[in-house]
Each structure stands twice: as structure tokens, then as C-alpha cells.
């Protein structure tokens, strides 16, 4: 499992850059970023090198932010690898709320996802021989 920070951003000019500036000033390095956006607001999801520090810096600056645990795996660099894992999760009735990919420290592709049943997901992935992070 890995930790991600979710930040609520209203749709306003410069809001993402304000958020990134807070992280910059706290000396935080971003490892991944994904935005779910709608017409009126977005939710920024980030993984950083120091999530606790990043969270406290964002909260102090007034950003509505929270720490969320994701199930994360390293995906082998070959065709169909991700599909096999997702099919296994689907067949095991694990529902994925959202997911995104990022590069691991070793350059390999990793994916993180939020699910309402993380323990079941971890067990299924272990059965498939996936490399959990």
C-alpha cells in the first residue's frame, strides 16, 4: 500500500500553481500527479517524497486535503500484464474507484488504485504473483 494526498481545488485561475508553490516552499518533491476534474472543481491526487510534511504544509495554507491509502503494484513491461491483473480483480468482485500510473524509482511502471476492499485486492494480486508495493 502507498499513501497519496488528495487536494480539493475549486475551479479558479492559478489554483494548481498555488498548491504546487506551497509544496515547493516546503521542499517537497512530487513523485506523481493526477487530476480528476469537473466543470466547477477538481481533485488533485499526488504522491510525494514526504507525505506527512506535504499534508501539513497544504493544510496550513488552507487547502482541503487528506491522506488516502492506495493499493499499488509494479506492472511488468509486457503486453497484457495490466489487463490480466485487472481481470483477476474484476472476477474477484473488487471495485476500483479510480486508478493512475506513475514511474517507480527503478523506472518500472507502477499503478495505484483506490478500492473499498483493499485487503481482498491485495490477496488476489498476491495469488497472481503481482509485485505489490
Amino acid at each position, binding site marked *: 500500500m502507498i499513501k*497519496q494526498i*488528495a487536494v*480539493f*481545488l*475549486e475551479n479558479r485561475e492559478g489554483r494548481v500553481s498555488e498548491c504546487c508553490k506551497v509544496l515547493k516552499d516546503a521542499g517537497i518533491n512530487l513523485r506523481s500527479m493526477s487530476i*480528476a476534474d*469537473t466543470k*466547477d*472543481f477538481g*481533485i488533485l*491526487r499526488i504522491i510525494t517524497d514526504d507525505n506527512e510534511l506535504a499534508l501539513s504544509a497544504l*493544510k496550513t495554507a*488552507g*487547502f*482541503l486535503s*487528506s*491522506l*488516502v491509502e492506495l493499493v499499488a503494484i509494479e506492472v511488468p513491461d509486457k503486453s497484457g500484464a495490466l489487463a490480466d491483473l485487472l481481470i483477476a480483480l474484476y472476477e474477484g468482485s473488487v471495485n476500483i*474507484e*479510480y486508478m493512475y500510473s506513475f514511474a517507480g524509482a527503478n523506472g518500472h511502471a507502477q499503478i495505484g488504485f*483506490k478500492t473499498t476492499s483493499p485487503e481482498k485486492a491485495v490477496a488476489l494480486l498476491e495469488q497472481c504473483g503481482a509485485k505489490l508495493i
Partner: protein
Amino acid sequence: MQYFQQEIETMSKAEKRALQSERLVNIVKYAYENQTPYRAKMDAIKLKPSDIKSIDDIYKLPFTVKQDLRDAYPFGMMARPKSDLVHLHASSATTGKLTVAGYTQKDIDVWAECAARCLVMAGADKNSVVHVSYGYGLFTGGLGMHYAGEKLGAVVVPASAGNTQKQIQLLVDFEADIICCTPSYIIYLAEEIEKMGLKIGKDIKLKGGVFGAEAWSEGMREDIEKRLNIRACDIYGLSEIAGPGVACDCQFKTGMHFQDDHYYPEIVDVDTLEPLGYDKSGELVITTLTKEGMPLIRYRTRDIASLNDDPCPCGRTSVKLNKITGRSDDMLIIRGVNVFPSQIESVLLKNENIQPHYHINVDRVNNLDTMEIVVELSPHIALDEVAHVEEIRKKLSADMASALSVSAKITLVSPGTVARSEGKAKRITDNRKLK
């Protein structure tokens, strides 16, 4: 300290009635003789001062409206020459001319006495440190509560509005036990106090406060009382009559005790202007029974409220003013439906995912009124999914539509982004007027 002026505050109904009658007879005669607009109004309906024999005759008298004061700007309504006046105050009118009120020294003394009664209701006594965060100036809030604290013999800290960090420093250092400000500002102060990590009871020693100059709800009161562990009293006043202190509630919160030995309240139907009985909602009308500088007879306040005459366990015998539910000035007409900001506030307070900081934007698009309510999410919730935010928005939207009978677009924003006011909150932007 239970009362500031026990004899008056606990006077029997019959004695009060006799006092009001005597004072009304005198003030009507005085107004007729000294205020040209009243002589003209009474002559026009062939009413003589001698026709007013007791408080029961008050219904015969003509009303006074805000426009009468504007027409008389600046000194046409004064009953005394400038040499007898010691103070001028003016309403915070956002449109048109200001309305001015002139006070003699006796008027200031009466005002201070009434407001001092209110401080005692909030738990103050002569040993109190009273921190006044109302603005000082033409607005009556600051100076009114200042005089009240002095009259009580307390220590007054004239902090005035603004510079919140310094205000908090003063609250800590001077150990104020009583605070006076607007309800929206005390919530802002509470937020800042929490952010600074100060301990309630240890660093902040407040016990009570009087909060007014804005309409606020019971939910807001509970929030303030819980966060600061204080008694939060609603105080009512208006610059035309006197500033804060016209009415205020005690610890039993049975309604605001109206200082009806000096200010006589009535409730009238908004459309027909017929007097309404107790517990019926309408426009509050006030007659000043003892004012010298600028007496007002049956002044229509534009505040919507009701009166109650139920006994209060505190022993005060005055008539009580129930919470102001709106102001006919603040009332928005959206697609023909009357909407009061207080209705919006009560919906917001019931939802724990958001904070009661909001702004209303009204516009007209393709000849149709639109209303947007911008509201802050609570800093205590965790949101990582779009669907969560949409759920909160939809729930609010549905609750709002059922409470207001008209739909509104809800826009959720981050905590702390709706502008906080240090004086009266300006919560409405109506762009329809500009077209």
C-alpha cells in the same frame, strides 16, 4: 450580578404599562411641538397630541419610514438645536443618502444604561474586561458598547474592528471575559484562535458575549457557544433608534428582552400595516418613549420578527423580541419567490460537511433570475473522489430547493476562501441592478 437596574427590569406589567402611557403622552406632545415632520404628519390626519391618552392609543399615530429620515437629511428631524446635541450617528446605508440620528447627553446616558443591562445579561459585572470589536465610528456598535461598559464600571478595551491577530493577543493579555462584535466576526475569531492552537479557558478566558448588527441563526449560536465555551447573547439595535442595546437575550434565551421602558415595540403586518398580536411574524415598529434629540414615532425598522410575552425564568418582565428572521431590505425576490439569507443559513448549518460561510450571487440570464450560493467545505472532511463532492453538492441543492421553494446553484469552495468581514457581513451580490 443578576440585573443592572432591577427595579425597572423586573417592574410589574401594570406599572410598566402606566410608565409607557405617561411617556408616550409626553413624547407625542414633544414631537408635535419640536419636530416639523411630525406636526405635518399629525395635522394631515387631524390628530392632536391630546388625542393620545395612553399607550393603547399608539395605533392612532402615523408611521415613520426611512425615507422620512432621508428627506430630512441632515437635521430636519432633530427636535433640538445643534447646541443641545452631543453626538451624531449615521446608518451604514449602502444606497441613497445616509440616515442621521442626533443624540443629547441624556439620550447617550439612556442608551448606555440599556446596553449595560445587556452586558449583564451576557454575564458581565463591574469587574469584567469588556473587549469591543465592533467598529468605532458613525456605526453605533463600537461606541454604544463602549459607553455600556463604562456605565457598568467595567474595563473597556476599545479594540475596534480589524487586525485579528492583534485582537487575539489583546484577548489573551488583558484576559477579557466579555466580547462584543458581529456574529460572523466571532466565528472568524474562533477559527483563528483554533488555528493558533490557543486553549479555551486557559489562554482565552471569555465567558460571554453580545453579538449583533447581523441576522444569525440558532445553529450559529450553538456553534459559537461550543467553540468558545461562552454564553452567546443576541443583541438588537439600530442607529435610528439607538445602537446595540434596544433588546438582548439573557441566559435563558426566551427571546430578546426589549427595553420597553424606553423603546416601545409593535409588530405590524408587512402589507396591511395592521398591528399583529404576540407570536405573529411581521415588521418590527419602534417608538422611542424618552428620546430628546430625535424622537421617532412608530418607526418601521424593516426587520421581520415576532414578539412574545411568555414569562422568563430570569425575572425580567419586558416583552421579548424573537430572533430577527430577515430584513425586508435583505429580502431577495428570485423568480417571484421571497428569499431571506437567514433561510439559506439555516440549511447550511444543518450540514456538517460545510461551514456557514457563504456568498450569494444573483444575476439575470435570458430574462430568468439565477441564484448561486458559494459555500465553503469543512476543513475536517476528507475528499478524494469527485463523487463525494457531487453528493455533498446534490444534497445541499435539494435541501436548499425545499427550504427556499426556488432552485439555487451550489458552488463548493475550499475552507477560508469566502471573504470574512470584520464589520457587517456583505453576503449578497445582486448583478441584476446593473442592467
